[in-house]
């Protein structure tokens, strides 16, 4: 995102993306409906936004490019817990509407609230994968991330 542009300019940025198979165009209005906060702040410069608002704007900008897949690298980082769940709930809405999302998260507890499939990586290797319901009971996840015995 551009710090020197307003939210609206950031979302308007660039040539309109081409529609194609597996691509959905997100008009500006759709982005504002997903993130009402961005609509409130649409005249604000990117540089004056809070961390959470910047993440929303970054996701909004990505959507405006009509992605086939949305890749999110630790969107929760540095955000207040309430903001994390708001952001991830919105991502879930996108998934429910048919978008494929690959979410990389250290905040596994929050991530598992909204994902369908979990792949657990350790030192670059996939050490476990499966549907979120089965993975929730996986001892390695419980121990490492969900604060089993020694939190």
């Amino acid at each position, binding site marked *: 995102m551009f710090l*020197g542009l307003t939210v609206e300019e950031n979302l308007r940025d*660039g040539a309109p993306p081409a529609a194609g198979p597996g691509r959905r165009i997100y008009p500006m209005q759709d982005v504002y409906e997903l993130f009402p906060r961005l609509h409130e702040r649409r005249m604000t410069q990117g540089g004056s936004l809070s961390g959470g608002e910047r993440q929303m704007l970054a996701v909004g900008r990505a959507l405006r490019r009509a992605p086939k897949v949305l890749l999110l690298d630790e969107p929760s980082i540095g955000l207040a817990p309430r903001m994390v769940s708001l952001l991830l709930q919105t991502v879930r809405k996108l998934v429910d509407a048919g978008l494929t999302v690959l979410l990389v998260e250290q905040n596994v507890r929050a991530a598992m609230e909204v994902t369908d499939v979990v792949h657990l990586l350790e030192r670059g290797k996939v050490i476990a994968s499966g549907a979120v319901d089965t993975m929730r009971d996986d001892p390695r996840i419980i121990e490492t991330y969900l604060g089993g015995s020694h939190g």
Partner: protein
Amino acid sequence: MNVLQQVVNGIIIGHAYALVAVGWTMLLGAARLVNFGHGQMYMVGAFVAWWFMRMTGQPYPVAVLAAILVGALIGAVMLRLLMRLTLSRDLVSLMIATLGFGQMLEGAAGLAFGPKPQTLASPFQDMSLHFGAIWFTVQDAILVVATIIVFLALRYVLNATRFGTSVRMVAEDPPLTRLGGIDITRVYMGIFAFEGAAVAFAATLVAPRTPILTSMGFDQVVMTFVVVVLGGIGSVVGSYVAGVSVGLFTALFGALVSPAYTTAAVFALLIAVMVLRPGQLAASANFAR
């Protein structure tokens, strides 16, 4: 000593500084480019207008338009030559390359226009307006009004048009701008053409005040550099304020202290500002404001 007259002179010179600096400010703000060929581009603008009037017999306003066109062309040529360095933002090499570009312009102008001082004759230079004890020429009035219009127009274009948004995006993050599907070489082309056109326009308005020489570029670059830096590297409004302030400073210093030391005094001012308020000089993401 008529202090009011000196203030008027200062305002006029200040607008001249600001108008000469506007293209460079844009270039610096948007492309982070320090153009040491700026003064020679100014000189070429003045000579093209002079030569055009002499060769075609066209009136001064037509010559102004011709100089603007040639100026934009020179800006575009400059970008073609510096494209690779501009895209990679190799700032030190760019600075040196623009110095060389300026020398090339100066050499070419020396060959084309000869070594003798010439006069760019504007009919408005001979018309003067008197208000009580103060007076100025119609040329001065045109200069001031044109400067204000150019700055307002630039501000509008940067903040309220699609192209302006692209310029601000390129200023902040060229790779990210390209990701958005914007052809950044075209944006750079617009920025460089604006620099060339703006400095040529400034030259045609300012140069009728004094004789023109093909070697006058360097003097021009020195003062413009001060204005651009004082304005807060690449800030549009800042360079307008800085131009007018430096104009007032030189006029009053020249009248009240000594005209011989004005340039030195301006540099002392610049050094003082750099030492006392360095933060104000940093290039910001909001250069369009």
